[in-house]
């Protein structure tokens, strides 16, 4: 079993991603919903379109210690411009990951508590296709 500290998002071109300094908590969410194609012939049961997922998307909401660091500054610039970033979410469990060349970064929120360390929360969302890597035992 891997520790949660191995569950991270890294940014950069595929296979050359860099760890983002200051990552703290992160939450990955896999979006997607089945398409309902129920008709009269189903006799009142629900029927979904098989082998199809609508609204497929990976989002990663992360909290970072705010610092002036190359990759973090790339994130801040991408939020401002809306430009996509290449990156990968790695679970650290069985090699499972989701790579995308076009993550969109939104929802920056900085928390600056008294007597504390400033933290930045942002959300990364895939735009277009992404490449999942299934976990192996």
């Amino acid at each position, binding site marked *: 079993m891997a520790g949660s*500290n191995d569950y*991270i998002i890294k940014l950069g071109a595929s296979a050359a991603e860099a*760890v*983002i*300094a*200051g*990552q*703290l908590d992160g939450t990955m969410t896999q979006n997607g919903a089945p398409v309902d194609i129920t008709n009269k012939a189903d006799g009142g049961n629900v029927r979904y379109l098989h082998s199809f997922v609508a609204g497929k998307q990976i989002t990663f909401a992360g909290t*970072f*210690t705010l*610092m002036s660091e190359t990759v973090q500054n790339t994130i801040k610039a991408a939020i401002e411009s809306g430009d996509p970033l290449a990156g990968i979410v790695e679970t650290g469990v069985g090699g499972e990951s989701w790579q995308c060349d076009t993550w969109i970064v939104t929802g920056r929120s900085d928390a600056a508590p008294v*007597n504390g*360390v400033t933290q930045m929360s942002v959300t990364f969302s895939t735009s277009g296709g992404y490449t999942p890597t299934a976990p192996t035992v």
Partner: protein
Amino acid sequence: MSFLDTKQALLTKLLATTITGITADDISYENGDFDPKGKDKFIAAYFIPATSDTTGKQLGAMQTHRGIFQVSVFVKLNSNAYDNDQLQIVDDILTGFQYNSTAVYNAQTTNILESSVNSGSENDAWFKRDVSIDYLTII
């Protein structure tokens, strides 16, 4: 990140603080012999680390340390001046350790946060009051 540097920074700041009636010889340090015989007041410094936290998941992530730097102020029991001398010393210490001031040692900065003072109490032949200074070190 160094506990030693944090302690040294705080002690250096204490020594640099002008405290009424207290000289460098009137300060008791942890794990050091101190004889208060013949003195009518002295202070004792205690370094009390509390929590450690990290700034990130990556290798080599920085750390934050929080804790308390406690300075106990001792004056002779049943003094004619009541606890006036003691409170003057407390005031002087708090002037030296103002909120948001810093102490630097070996290029490591320690931030001074809030300070608090407790009620006085008898302690053997002394009347004692503790000044608790919260600190935060980020490296």
